[in-house]
């Protein structure tokens, strides 16, 4: 027969289990999530609403971007066509930015977000060099490495990332890649999707529908906006 003390212990343990089980279950469910994004380029019109929404939401300094939508003119059999390509951190399965960090300031969360610990970062810029997607930068305001977090502060509260919520054409879709019923999984299952820079074998978790092969790997551009700006800057420097 159990003593009174043992009985109380059992009773407390039992009540604790009753109270913590839903929390533990929710935590386990949260842990089993793996965030990903599908960008349907057929719907993207290059309006930059996502660029602006991200900058406002994350207070990114002027002139710097966690996401942006460069626009290209592509040559095709039917003549030139316009292509908008939203770029952001790909939250890779094998992110090249993490192993190079000398102070372990950048890491992957349980849900797969690649994030930076701003208190730990020494801003050596090594991760900026290592990222093949040019998704990282040294933030002017904070003085540390900065990048897209899939709006982790929003997703933790059950909200969508700012860029997804603002996308007027629903070109950006965000969800749990581990959930077979999620919209992202269904889109991936029903469409041919591609990732950027497959040659680096980083396992990106941003999938593109309708991505032109010319834009998937190293893009060879010329005679465009950058050329014009570079020429203007060189001229301005020479004048100065």
């Amino acid at each position, binding site marked *: 027969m159990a003593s009174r003390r043992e009985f109380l212990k059992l009773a407390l343990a039992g009540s604790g289990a009753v109270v913590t089980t839903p929390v533990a279950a929710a935590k386990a469910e949260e842990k089993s999530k793996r965030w990903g994004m599908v960008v349907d380029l057929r719907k993207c019109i290059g309006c930059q609403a996502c660029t602006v929404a991200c900058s406002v939401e994350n207070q990114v300094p002027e002139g710097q971007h966690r996401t942006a939508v460069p626009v290209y003119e592509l040559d095709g059999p039917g003549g030139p066509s316009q292509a908008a390509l939203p770029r952001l951190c790909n939250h890779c399965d094998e992110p090249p930015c993490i*192993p190079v960090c*000398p102070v372990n300031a950048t890491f992957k969360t349980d849900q797969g977000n690649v994030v930076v610990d701003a208190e730990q970062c020494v801003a050596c810029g090594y991760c900026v060099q290592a990222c093949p997607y040019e998704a990282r930068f040294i933030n002017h305001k904070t003085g540390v490495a900065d990048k897209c977090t899939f709006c982790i502060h929003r997703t933790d509260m059950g909200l969508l990332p700012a860029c997804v919520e603002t996308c007027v054409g629903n070109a950006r879709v965000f969800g749990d890649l581990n959930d077979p019923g999620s919209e992202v999984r269904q889109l991936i299952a029903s469409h041919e999707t591609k990732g950027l820079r497959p040659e680096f074998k980083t396992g990106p978790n941003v999938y593109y529908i309708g991505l032109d092969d010319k834009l998937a790997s190293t893009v060879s551009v010329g005679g465009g906006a950058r050329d014009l*700006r570079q020429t203007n800057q060189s001229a301005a420097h020479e004048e100065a």
Partner: protein
Amino acid sequence: MSAVDLMSFDHEIAWRPWAVAYFLLIGTAAGAGLLMVCTRLLLKQAAQGALVVAASFALASGLPLLADLHQPARFLHFYMGTSTSSIMWWGSWILPLFIASLLLLALLRGMRMEQELSGLEQMLTAVSGLLALCILGYTAGEMHAVAARPLWASIGFPITLTLSALMSGAGATIAYDHLRGVSGPGRGMLVISGAVTLIAFGIWLLNDPDLSRVAADQAPVTIYLVFIGAGLVYPMLMIAITKSNCLLSVSSGVAAVLGALAFRWATFMGAQLTSKTETAMYDEIHLDTHEVLQVFLGSAGMLVLCLIVLSVFLRVLANRTNAQTQA
């Protein structure tokens, strides 16, 4: 060309000119350190100049290294955890050990004036040599590991970076020794490393489209001309022709260091101006800006200060040791 960019976005170069100065100073220190080790252990000669140059360059490299961090006050974070997958983390341990070994060796040498090697000095010299090799390995490996920068990830880059560091170390030692009126070691190392650098760089330039593209598009051709002409050919010719001409020897040594600087500037800045996604617009850092002036004057000033302090300190120490011996 497969596309025309209609809209591009600004990015900034992450490794600023301070990084160029750091890699020059630490590479030169490692080159001079290896010269000192070879001269001391194999030829059994003093190599005082090489030791002072190695220690001064290594000590001075701390300034551009910290200045290149955007959060220099957090440098202790390197030592508060382990990140064995990062070559930079290994470098953060190798660098202070290298500096400490050179300073200890200089102190020991200043306190003992006789030519023969003591056991402790022999051991410290060997450790310094090993750490100099580690410095060369980590600096080349740190950049070679960046697959996203094809220029740095190519085979030719770490080889040329290392060889030019050896040449710069030999050049700095020759210049320093001649300035203090001593004909020290380094001539052979300068000629051999210069010739091998020239061959390696030539093969790399002819075979690597990334390098030739960067050379043609991003970095001014004059910088490559400085590297090849003033940095490699001129010192080799002068050292081979002249034996004891002070002015020509000093100018050859300085030219070798400037050549190493030109190579680092061209490849560090040129590679970073190349957008990895061909979408970002990088603002070029011109040589005549206040930032570059600050880097060069700051680094050179720190270097001269270290050279003077170390030279004077060793002289005072040697005089005191001599006086004690005579007494």
